């Protein structure tokens, strides 16, 4: 299992750095990666149906409660099969679709990265691990949307998607951490037992809202939906895979995952019903007004995601069974529609519905793929969509208080979606041909588009099998109630049949009304300034300007400003703190023991320091600096440090000589600062000096004997055969330190040398 998740990452690394080795010929082998994973997960179906949930345990950072455990139950298995199955189709399709692209290495690298992250996300059993994979899907999505990075709009779309999903991800992290804290574990299997603890906690509403923030941003729910239509800038295979079939469903996955733990009447149900309801209607209406096929698909996807949130909100076994089936149905027909769109775009150079007509004559198989997808979308027998639509109505009718309202909402959404599906699957293929494509459509293009449709029909004809393997276990996993005996090809004349017939009839009328898309209609619904996307963009710009101003105040480019802020805060904070810890019990005999020659040296030193500060002549200042150095040299001598004295003497002399040499070429001092600034700086510097003084006396109060000096005193000669202990420490005990110090000096020396040699020829203007 670990291999199954990680192999995608390894492959991603390999692909991304393959450079020119990644050619057409190599890319034909890549679909075998998702295909073999698909087979692996398909073999897991029987064990999962038999055992419920299978745990795979791998240690990772156990001390932090983070493990690499994976949990395979019907929910994660459904997603894993979709990810690898649709992945196989998309990889296959890409070999033809992206054939002539120059950067196949990056393309397959990002795509594999995404596939692996998505697999990790749905399989992870640990909340922290889940979050890591969640973020990785956002990141790989960012790269894939912005894949055509020369297109500025693609770049912006990628950034929008990253900001929205990444922002939601941060909130999600907080929700996950809170859940982990309350339950005392980050393992999902254990959290499953603590649903009551979470629901009874006073933080329950907060956790829900944060979780919803993550889910709604990722799964493009109103009002965060706007990143998804923009994300259609990505190459069509990417849109198929990430922004329709798999990644955008990650939010739905999370909702379903936490349904047993967090669901409840009130906040959970109402929020999901309202947001899902608005989103499914909003997306369906918007879809009909578009002319770009991918825009239609984006909005129908938003609508479908709304339906999924809506179904989770209903929360009954019927609703969750419908959810499980609809996730599969939607992935099949929507990926097929996207791939059909890609074929049309590739062969005719446009995906604008106002220009595409009658292509069914030239590409019958693509037409068949489109029709099968539209059929499934419409919920007509024998396609699988028939069953999912039935369950959808059954679930909405089952609501206790508002069944009429919710069913009405579902009905309208389904009618509009049906019409939108026909716009994709039927519209471009009928009528007088608008284009005459010269070459035949490659089988690598039509096959992946047709396959899901055929699968949907096959599955639709086997309702009992679907019930046994998908809907019933799915409902049982999430609600602990099995759901059986509801899927059949003919259920008699009942309410559900009536609703289906109404959907079909009304849908056809709507399609007939909207079957000639016009550009003018797009502007009807495209209110950029008032849309959530436009408003959020404006807010983001405002935020950026605010921080820009803030940064200009804080980081104003004046070194003095930075220094005074740092020193000021240090004096203030340490000054406030130190007054509580000063003891003032000094060993007066020790600190006042002064000899005459030392006092004289100190006097000279004070004068030198003051002169070096106040002198208006630079030469005098440098000379006093030298004098300060020499006084320090004397202090070292008085207090038993002859080596230091020698070093200080040499270095001090060198410094002064170097300074004087260089000073020659520099202009005289500037005398610009006014009196007020002088006083301010004097107070700041004086405060700092006083602080250091107090601090020093205080430290001297503490005993310093660490025992280390005794070790050196004893062993300097015996072990290292040297009598000057300081030297022995430097060249023997701490020899490596000294070596590195020499390296540092050598680097500084090189720097000095190259600076002197440097001639800036291209001076900045």
């Amino acid at each position, binding site marked *: 299992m670990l291999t199954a998740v990680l192999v995608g990452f390894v492959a991603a690394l390999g692909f991304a750095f393959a450079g020119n080795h990644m050619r057409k010929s190599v890319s034909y082998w890549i679909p075998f990666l998702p295909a073999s994973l698909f087979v692996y997960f398909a073999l897991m179906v029987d064990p999962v149906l038999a055992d419920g949930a299978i745990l795979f345990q791998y240690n990772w950072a156990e001390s932090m409660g983070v493990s690499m455990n994976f949990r395979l139950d019907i929910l994660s298995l459904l997603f894993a099969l979709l990810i690898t199955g649709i992945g196989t189709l998309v990889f296959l399709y890409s070999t033809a679709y992206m054939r002539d692209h120059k950067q196949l290495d990056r393309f397959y690298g990002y795509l594999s990265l995404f596939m692996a992250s998505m697999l990790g996300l749905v399989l992870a059993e640990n909340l922290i691990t889940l979050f890591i994979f969640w973020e990785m899907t956002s990141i790989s999505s960012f790269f894939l949307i912005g894949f055509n990075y020369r297109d500025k709009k693609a770049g912006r779309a990628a950034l929008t998607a990253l900001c929205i999903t990444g922002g939601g991800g941060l909130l999600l992290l907080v929700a996950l951490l809170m859940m982990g804290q309350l339950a005392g574990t980050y393992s999902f299997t254990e959290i499953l037992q603590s649903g009551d603890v979470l629901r009874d906690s006073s933080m329950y509403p907060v956790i829900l809202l944060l979780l919803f923030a993550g889910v709604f941003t990722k799964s493009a729910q109103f009002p965060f939906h706007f990143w998804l239509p923009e994300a259609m800038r990505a190459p069509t295979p990417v849109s198929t895979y990430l922004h329709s079939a798999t990644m955008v469903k990650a939010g739905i996955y999370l909702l379903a995952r936490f349904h047993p733990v967090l669901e409840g009447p009130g906040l959970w149900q109402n929020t999901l019903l309202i947001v899902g309801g608005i989103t499914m209607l909003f997306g369906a209406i918007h879809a009909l007004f578009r002319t770009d096929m991918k825009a239609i698909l984006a909005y129908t996807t938003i609508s479908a995601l709304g339906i999924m949130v809506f179904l989770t909100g209903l929360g009954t076994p019927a609703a969750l069974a419908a959810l499980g089936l609809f996730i599969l149905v939607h992935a099949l027909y929507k990926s097929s529609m996207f791939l059909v769109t890609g074929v049309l775009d590739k062969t005719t150079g446009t995906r604008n519905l106002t220009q595409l007509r009658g292509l069914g004559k030239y590409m019958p198989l693509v037409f068949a793929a489109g029709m099968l997808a539209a059929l499934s979308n419409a919920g007509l027998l024998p396609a699988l969509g028939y069953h999912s639509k039935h369950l959808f109505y059954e679930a909405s009718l089952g609501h206790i208080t508002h069944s009429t309202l919710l069913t009405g909402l579902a009905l309208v959404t389904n009618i509009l979606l049906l019409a939108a599906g026909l716009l994709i699957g039927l519209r471009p293929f009928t009528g007088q041909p608008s284009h005459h494509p010269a070459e035949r459509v490659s089988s690598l293009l039509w096959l992946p588009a047709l396959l899901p449709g055929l699968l949907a029909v096959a599955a639709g004809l086997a309702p009992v099998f679907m019930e046994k393997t998908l809907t019933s276990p799915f409902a049982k996993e999430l609600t602990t109630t099995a759901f059986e005996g509801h899927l059949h090809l003919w259920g008699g004349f009942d309410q559900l049949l009536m609703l289906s017939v109404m959907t079909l009839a009304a849908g056809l009328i709507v399609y007939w009304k909207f079957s000639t898309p016009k550009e003018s209609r797009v502007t009807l619904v495209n209110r950029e300034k008032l849309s959530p996307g436009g408003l959020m963009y404006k807010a983001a710009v405002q935020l950026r300007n605010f921080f820009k101003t803030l940064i200009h105040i804080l980081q104003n*480019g*004046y*070194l*003095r400003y930075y*220094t005074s802020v740092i020193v000021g805060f240090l004096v203030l904070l340490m000054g406030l703190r130190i007054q509580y810890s000063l003891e003032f019990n000094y060993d007066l005999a020790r*600190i*006042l023991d*002064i000899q005459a020659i*030392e006092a004289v040296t*100190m006097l000279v*030193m004070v004068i030198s*320091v003051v002169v070096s500060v106040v002198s208006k002549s630079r030469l005098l*200042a440098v000379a006093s*600096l030298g004098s*300060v150095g020499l006084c320090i040299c004397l202090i*070292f001598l*008085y*207090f*038993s*440090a002859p080596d*230091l004295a020698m*070093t*200080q003497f040499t*270095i001090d002399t060198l*410094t002064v000589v170097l*300074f004087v040499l*260089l000073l020659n*070429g*520099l202009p005289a001092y*500037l005398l610009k*600062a006014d009196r007020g600034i002088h006083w301010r*700086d004097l107070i700041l*510097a004086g405060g700092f*000096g006083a602080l*250091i*003084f107090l601090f*020093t006396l205080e*430290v*001297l109060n503490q005993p*310093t004997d660490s025992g280390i*000096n005794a070790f050196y005193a*004893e062993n*300097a*000669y*015996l072990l290292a055969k040297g*009598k*000057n*202990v*300081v030297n022995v*420490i*430097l060249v023997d005990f701490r020899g490596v330190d*000294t070596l590195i110090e020499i390296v*540092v000096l050598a680097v500084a*020396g090189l*720097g*000095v040398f190259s*600076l002197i040699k*440097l001639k800036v020829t291209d*001076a*900045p203007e």
Partner: protein
Amino acid sequence: MVILLALMVGLMYAAGIYLVLRRSLVKLIIGLILLGNAANLLIFLIGGITRGEPPVIGEGEFTLGEVYADPLPQALILTAIVIGFGLQAFAMVLLEQEYREAGVTDLDSLKDEDTDDQ
């Protein structure tokens, strides 16, 4: 003597900070050198000072006597002096080169050179 040295360290820090806050690049470097010296003196002082007992093992002996100056701070400071010199030399040459290229030693006018990101 400890009290005088502590005062001295305080004075040198104050002088160093004051110089660093000036606009002139030359003063900035003088300030840096003073701060470096002050830090060395501070370590020396805190390490404990002893008169007339250098940490050198006498003729015919194998270990240090009973009373001796702590060799450890001395080794530290010796390193610090040398490294400090590397820094100071580099700063000085940088200043000189900067003046040769940009023609100013005023830190405020340098600011305008590299913030034209608008």
